[in-house]
């Protein structure tokens, strides 16, 4: 019965393929149009635009790549990547208090962030295992919950229990971290390590090399036993369980990996920015990364490395040009600001709707299939297929 239904879906897939491709390309196409309209209106010089896009690619790619692994494991868009971002920030705050600067500072911050990320990831994964079928909303609420804990630690415990020496980081009241922590002595150290200038466009080669290493790692990881297991779990948890895969553990590992990568990604992101907005840097980062990934043509259950880079380019081009274009068209600079916020949310909404409708359609297709088979051979129809 299982084999029969598989055959059915593969033949079904061939028919839907064109529609699928069109659907997948629709969001990137829409963005290409938006960008094509906005770029001339915004009137930014090509070199400025190119510079900005290259900078943002270096800054955001790593973070967005961290989303790929949970998607592989069928856990949807990991809104809990914010957890890793917070771990990265804690690492950076401590390192800047110890005055460890430059690349060694980043490495040390990453080493500090990793155990925190692992713990948060395990916690998040365990909770998500209890909320199967609604991972996304749970991981989304999780990011708020851990943000509360983060604030407790950073605003009250740092300087109180966790020693913080420098008054440039500590609030004047004696405990808690300031709104902004300067990373001046780490600022763009990674980007400038090997930086080449092409026609006035600065290319942070070292950052791209690290992003490249992560890409290679992800490609390699897909082929490992664990990666295969994750894909199996992502396809069908029950089948994976029957095949002897520890589904719960695999899911937790995928979240832990994503959280750890997000922590490192946040460190790369912040070294480029040059300062930490202690209480807000992480709050929007999940949303932006997810929006960028979806703009690149990914969906909730399918994302590739290509989606990441296309998404960064398109999403951030829109981000750069929208305020200027909006100001030019309406005479109010805020319109463009709100427009890009709206677009980010609308893209995510659209992608979620597309995913859910697709899921329902597949469900009803397999339901019909099941019913047909049941009619044919009532005795063989097991209760198992009922919950597909």
């Amino acid at each position, binding site marked *: 019965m299982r084999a029969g239904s598989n055959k059915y879906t593969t033949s079904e897939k061939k028919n839907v393929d064109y529609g699928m491709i069109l659907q997948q390309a629709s969001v990137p196409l829409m963005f290409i149009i938006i960008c094509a309209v906005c770029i001339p209106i915004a009137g930014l010089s090509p070199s400025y635009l190119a510079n900005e896009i290259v900078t943002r690619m270096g800054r955001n790619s790593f973070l967005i790549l961290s989303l790929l692994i949970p998607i592989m494991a069928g856990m949807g868009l990991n809104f809990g990547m914010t957890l890793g971002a917070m771990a990265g920030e804690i690492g950076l705050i401590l390192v800047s208090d110890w005055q460890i600067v430059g690349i060694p500072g980043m490495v040390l911050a990453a080493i500090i962030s990793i155990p925190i990320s692992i713990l948060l990831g395990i916690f998040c994964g365990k*909770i998500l295992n*209890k*909320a199967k*079928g*609604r991972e*996304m*909303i*749970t991981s*989304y*609420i*999780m990011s*708020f*919950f851990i*943000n*509360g*804990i983060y*604030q*407790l630690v950073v*605003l*009250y415990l740092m300087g109180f229990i966790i020693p913080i020496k420098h008054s440039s980081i500590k609030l004047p009241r004696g405990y808690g971290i300031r709104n902004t922590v300067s990373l001046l002595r780490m600022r763009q150290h990674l980007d400038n390590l090997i930086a080449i200038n092409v026609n006035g466009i600065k290319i942070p080669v070292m950052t791209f090399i690290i992003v490249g290493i992560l890409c290679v790692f992800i490609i390699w990881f897909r082929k490992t036993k664990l990666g295969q297991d994750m894909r199996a779990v992502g396809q069908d948890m029950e089948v994976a369980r029957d095949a002897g895969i520890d589904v719960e553990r695999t899911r937790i590992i995928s979240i832990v990996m994503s959280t750890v990568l997000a922590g490192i990604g946040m460190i790369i992101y912040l070294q480029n920015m040059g300062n930490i907005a202690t209480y807000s840097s992480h709050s929007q980062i999940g949303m932006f990364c997810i929006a960028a990934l979806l703009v690149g043509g990914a969906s909730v259950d399918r994302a590739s490395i290509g989606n990441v880079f296309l998404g960064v380019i398109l999403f951030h081009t829109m981000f750069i040009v929208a305020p200027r274009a909006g100001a030019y068209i*309406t005479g*109010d600079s*805020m*319109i463009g600001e*709100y*427009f890009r*916020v*709206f677009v*980010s*949310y*609308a893209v*995510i*909404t659209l992608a*979620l*709707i597309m*995913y*859910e*409708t697709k*899921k*329902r359609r597949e469900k009803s297709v397999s339901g019909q299939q099941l019913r047909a088979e049941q009619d044919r051979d009532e005795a063989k129809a097991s209760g198992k297929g009922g*919950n597909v």
Partner: protein
Amino acid sequence: MTESITMKDKIMASLKSFGLPRLIITGFLLLLLIMAPFVGADLPTQISNIINRFSWNGVLVLAMVPMVHSGCGLNFGLPLGIISGLLGATLSIEFGFTGAFSFLMAIVIATPFALVLGALYGWLLNKIKGGEMMIATYVGFSSVSLMCMMWLLLPYHSPNMVWGFSGKGLRTTISLEGYYNQALAGIGQINIGNVSIPTGTLLFFALLAFGIWAFLHTKTGTAMTAVGSNPVFARAAGINVDRIRMLSVIMSTWLAAIGILVYEQGFGFIQLYMAPFYMALPAVSAILIGGASVNKASIMNVIVGTILFQGIVTMTPTVMNNMIHMDMSEVIRIIASMGMILFALTRKTEASR
């Protein structure tokens, strides 16, 4: 002896169904209430604050009930209804209505918006059964950010609402002085010493709550509960599931629109732009603290939950500040309310349809 053991079992069982987070939150509030006089906080003022804040927020929390009942989950899309309410509020002022009458007109104007948006929202949620909560969240976000542009672009002219220097675009906060500030609270307000009870608002809430309660006992109402608890059975019994779900979403949206108006008349200001963004989360956690779950909610949950939630919101800052000179209220509020939502999401429900 045996009796005491069964008693113990009973207590343990009821505690288990009550849920640990809820127990912690209730215990925490009780602790705050006990501590309050010792740390020099004025208890009557505190209680008065809780009652007032309850009256502001009650309807917003009530807006959760219909959707939970029909199995659409927690209404994270509350901002959509809030936007209808805001449209009603701003248009009522724009058309020149003043005083308490502007409140009535705001409700009247908000209603069609709520019905239309609610119907669209309900139609959408029927398309994506099973993934309601996440999509609801993002529908709320998208609509709020879309309206951010609209507040700037729509041709409002009332000088009390637009930016003074440019003469267009609504302000971020609009004072309701001269409009419907305290429109409900002022009706039959009782003042005893430091305690003031907004009788009108409470009655208005009671009226709506009773309306919902009565509705849930009508034929359509029981059908709604049936759809929520077992959609397959409901369909077999000849109930049009999609229509019932749509109705519940419209009701929730309309209640949210009314809810924000009630909130504004107590608060005294209309807050636009990003203000409605996260308004769903306090309402969601309030009803959960009150004992609701993802697919079960009663009027009692609303009342208890709002009192507990608002109790924590109002009591923590004062008590904490007086006790340890650290204002940790914000952090405590986030951890408590988000922890509650997380807990509810991890409970087993028959979410699979």
